[in-house]
């Protein structure tokens, strides 16, 4: 399985979808990421990332309810697919393994 096709921003968005499930859509994801990272995140960028993730099959989407703020337009809600979930776990496992190999003295230095 190729993991390299998951970009950093895509990974964060995918995680956010998982975290916000089942009410994950571009606006809340963008807001959540802004809150978490402190950087401004546009819905356009999130939207594009979601499109790519969907193309790769990591998320699936359906149209949700319409609200007044949206001018009566429906939102597209995203959920992490089984494939997406596996990928997230793989990525995490790789990172965990690497983290565990870091010398504890070094970790202390960083604190």
């Amino acid at each position, binding site marked *: 399985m190729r993991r390299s096709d998951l970009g950093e921003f895509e990974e964060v968005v995918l995680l956010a979808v998982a975290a916000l499930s089942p009410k994950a*859509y571009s*606006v809340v994801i963008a807001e959540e990421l802004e809150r978490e990272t402190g950087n401004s995140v546009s*819905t356009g960028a999130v939207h*594009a990332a979601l499109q790519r993730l969907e193309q790769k099959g990591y998320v699936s989407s359906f149209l949700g309810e319409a609200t*007044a703020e*949206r001018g009566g337009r429906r*939102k597209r809600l995203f959920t992490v697919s089984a494939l997406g979930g596996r990928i997230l776990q793989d990525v995490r496992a790789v990172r965990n393994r690497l983290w565990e190999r870091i010398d504890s003295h070094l970790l202390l230095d960083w604190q």
Partner: protein
Amino acid sequence: MKPEKSSSRKPNHQYAPKWITWFIEWLCAPHLREEVLGDLYERYALQVAQWGEAKARRRYWREVLAYVRPSIIRRQPAVGVPHHRRFGTYPNPTNTVMLRNYLKIAFRNLVRNKVYSFINIGGLAVGMAIAMLIGLWIYDELSFDKYHKNYDRIATVMQHYNVNGETVTQLSVPLPLANELRTTYGSEFKHVLLSSWTEGHTLSVGDKKLWKAGNYIEPGAPDMLSLKMLKGTRAGLKEPYSIMISESVANAFFGEGDPMGKVLKIDNQIAVKVTGVYEDLPYNTQFNNLDYLVPWQVNVAIRDWVKNSQDRWSNNSFQIFVQLADHSAGMEAVSAKIKEAKLQHIDKEEAKQKPEIFLQPMSNWHLYSEFKNGVNVGGRIQFVWLFGIIGAFVLLLACINFMNLSTARSEKRAKEVGIRKAVGSIRSQLIGQFLSESLLVVFISFAISLLLVQLILPFFNDVADKKMTMLWSTPVFWLLGISFCFLTGLISGSYPAFYLSSFQPVKILKGTFRVGRFAAIPRQVLVVIQFTVSVALIIGTIIVFRQIQFAKNRPIGYSRNGLLYVQTTTADIHNHYDAFRDDLIKSGAVVEMAESESPLTGVWNNNGGFDWAGKDPNQDANFAVIGVTHEFGKTVGWQFKEGRDFSRAFATDSLGLVLNEAAVKFMGLKNPVGQIVREKTQDGFLTYKVIGVIKDMVMESPYEPVKQTLFYLGNFSGNFVNIKLNPNTSASEAVSKIGAVFQKYNPASPFNYKFADQEYAKKFAAEERIGTLATFFAILAIFISCLGLFGLASFVAEQRTKEIGVRKVLGASVFSLWGLLSKDFVLLVFISFGIATPIAWYYLDNWLQKYKYHTEISWWIFVASGTGALVVTLLTVSFQSVKAALMDPVTSLRSE
């Protein structure tokens, strides 16, 4: 109430900028529109709640721009392709597909009809290129002198005066006029600047000597001319014995070094200090050859005759430039005010001439420089008009071609229109198709024409004596170019677009559709216009060249072969005249030499105040007066009608005169030789005796009558050394030998020689330039017309294939078929000839009247031009008609 104060999440999407909605709706693929717009609105609402409306609006920009990316813009592929599961409006917009189809069809049509495409695109590109070149030329002419910031307020002071019933206008005015203007009319002017003419002098630094041209002028000049100072200030000329030099002169003398404060010598005599370096004046200014400026006071100090002229109102030898004051009433008003500034100061005798002072504004110097009987009659502006009209016509020809061919070809596409309509095209789509097709072709031509102009420009600059560049960075140029493209494209595309698209598909496809007879008439009119222009241009070209030839063939009265002259600014040679002459002749390179006051190709000195027996007291006795040395006649080879040449054998010849024929006629003398002529001088009279009469020598304009001229053995300081080369020595060898002798006697000046025949040839430069350009345009006009005709003829031949087949079967000969196909075009040429002849005659006759010596317009020119046009037409048409007539009727009848 401000929106952010609302605690509950009220819908406030109405605050989101409306136009952004439109923008997104246009940009975004239909299947994504709902979610994208919804997201944007919701985000906006959230941000308004968070930061307030102002900041939210600013952020909104960035939010929207984040959607400008391919994955949002790209439309969903048509049904059947994955991802269609998403909702949306229609699966795919039709317009891109159809546009692609239009383009494809357009290109296929261009490629299939290679010849037509070439004629169409090539012809239009050439026409546009010509129009652009002419446009550039006109732009250059109109922007002449605009380099100077005070362009609108600068003028020269000129005068009109009356001589023998005619008003003469001249640039040279008396010296004290400057003071008069300053004191009496001072409030009108910011600057009143006395100036010498632009004179050539030798500048030297150490051993380095260069011949440069410049003016003695009052210190306000750099400020008036708004010179861009590279070093020093504009006040530099206020210092006595200073000089301001142009950048190129500074580079020539000092290279990288600093010229400021260095000492230059003028004619190896006057030392001046460099107080400023100015940027070279651009080529399209009057002063483009101004290499240096020296303060006027230097001129007064070094030349006695200038000093003596300070109070002399009768010596009209100076230039005065003025700049109007900022609050001044304007050129006309000031002109009217200073009208009598000279009249009040001159004696009764001179007042008879009624001199009138006026201002010639800088804006008139270049384009409106000619005066006739005291009235400004234009000048170069005539050429601006002439070429402007020619340019417009050439462009018109090219457009006519383009329209003719596009409409002619489009009839062939009636079937395509029928099918498109049958399949469901609506009319507006067909209109769009044809218009975009013709726009495409026009823009291809435009691109080619830009390339052509870039290629031709160096050559054109050469011919037109200009330094023009493409105006790549001028918005107006692009605006004009592109709007012209749209205009041509829309007009030429309009016939197929609006006419063809109106047909009923059933009729076209069934074949009952017929293009009416009248459809050809507009085309024929256009062909007539084309040929009218072409024939008129041919006639014009022939007449311009005949006029030049006529003037060149005029007997000039002396021999210019191997004759050269050198201007001297010091008296070194004059003082050693005999030794110098001996050395030259001994060198073997020279047959004879002499000095003269004026160059061989001009008259620099005019005097009045002569008297002789039988003179009408009211006649204004003004003569060209040229001082010469004894050998002058032998050097230039003048031809005697009566009497004899100056001779050293007769001491009395120092008061002898040689007249030319014009002078004899002017004076009304029956037996000129031996007559006494008296000249009034400051201290009495000088009495001369006529010793000979020569044939008129054409020294000034070859188009004007020769002026009455007196030659005398002058007591002058020597201006020009004239040298007749030995015909047995090669010119280059002779020049180097002469140069050596010059260096010996006149080491201070560089040896700057000019060949009389070359200098004389320059007098034809203006006319030859017009001739060359007119030929160039005429050839192109004919070329473009022929291209169009060729296209039309082949179209007609093709249309009548069946008819020709039937006629052949019935026994028509090739010759009669050729006649059938050609006669329509011949008729058109005859009509154009009929229109062109009177128009050309009228304008060319007017043009020739400008010249006193001019050729006659003879009938054969018209016949020749008409025949030429006819032959060219027949050749062009015959190529197609013979081909059609030779075709095997079986093939032509079997088609379809």
